[in-house]
């Protein structure tokens, strides 16, 4: 039977649960980092990504409503996270649509849920499901630690390629740029909240499991993007998988 871990050991375990399932290892992410995707491939990514990240404030809204009143700091974090996604500066999805348009698709196509793949619909549904049904601290572990905290490392790899190989302008790639700052904050605050409130061995184990599943879900999503939209043009042999 698992024992209660101290915060340092628990954090290391959370990081290990995500590591190895990182979306950076998917063929789609590798092709992206190698500059081998076309703008049409990136347009399909944007049309799918909108339906995964677009409702992020809604996912968090469910968790916010279910967090006990006395968890003031955790509730404030979620509220601030929702505010920043939607109205703190530019709405994050507006920046995603700006990138999508630069890739050659339209806002109408991006917003149309018929243009997401079944796997993307599965990821979105999983996010709603854990937001509505899991213990709220476990939900924060899954959504914020398992998913959101991965974003800065993914975009740090992808952003230079978008500028240098794909030749997008700075305003066109602002969606990626801002998440390196915002999700560094959100991810770390998510860790702090989970470390503070997962105060039983059972809760810690559930947080670890949901982080692992969250990382797997994101990896599944990006791998499916490759299978659905890229593989026919760019088979695995064309990727330098050691990169």
């Amino acid at each position: 039977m698992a024992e209660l871990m101290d915060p340092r050991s628990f954090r290391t375990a959370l990081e290990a649960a995500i590591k190895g399932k990182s979306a950076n290892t998917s063929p789609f992410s590798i092709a992206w980092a190698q500059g081998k995707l076309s703008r049409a491939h990136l347009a399909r990514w944007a049309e799918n990504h909108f339906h995964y990240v677009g409702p992020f404030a809604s996912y968090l809204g469910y968790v916010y409503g279910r967090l006990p009143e006395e968890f003031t700091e955790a509730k404030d974090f979620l509220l601030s996270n929702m505010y920043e996604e939607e109205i703190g500066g530019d709405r994050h999805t507006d920046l995603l649509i700006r990138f999508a348009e630069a890739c050659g698709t339209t806002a109408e196509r991006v917003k149309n849920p018929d243009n997401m793949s079944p796997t993307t619909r599965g990821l979105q549904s999983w996010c709603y499901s854990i937001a509505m049904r899991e213990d709220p601290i476990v939900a924060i572990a899954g959504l914020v630690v398992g998913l959101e905290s991965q974003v800065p490392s993914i975009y740090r790899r992808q952003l230079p390629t978008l500028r240098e190989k794909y030749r997008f302008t700075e305003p066109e790639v602002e969606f990626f740029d801002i998440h390196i700052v915002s999700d560094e904050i959100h991810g770390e605050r998510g860790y702090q909240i989970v470390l503070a409130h997962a105060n039983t061995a059972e809760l810690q184990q559930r947080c670890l499991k949901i982080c692992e599943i969250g990382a797997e879900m994101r990896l599944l999503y990006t791998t499916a993007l490759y299978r659905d939209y890229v593989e026919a043009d760019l088979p695995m042999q064309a990727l330098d998988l050691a990169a």
Partner: protein
Amino acid sequence: MPCVLFHKEGQAFAGEVAANTNLVVRAGIRQFPYPHLTYGCGMGKCGKCASRVLSGAEHLPAPNWKENERLGDRIKAGYRLVCQLWISHDIELAQDAPSAVPTAR
């Protein structure tokens, strides 16, 4: 490790940060210069984190398109958007009191 000296409303606050640190990220996760640094959107739009660089500016990259858009002529007076800076060298910054910050353009 870079040393940061941060001036605000007549007081000075000092701290060490890891190389390639963004001070808005640090404040966002409740570490120095929290709670002294005022910031907002973290995306170079609101201008609330604008601060004057008193020393160490030579180690910073040129202002980016967001800083040029948001700060305009204030760049000549040494202002930068702290949310856009990744710090790897010692730096000294001063942030005006909130009432002294010009309205966002």
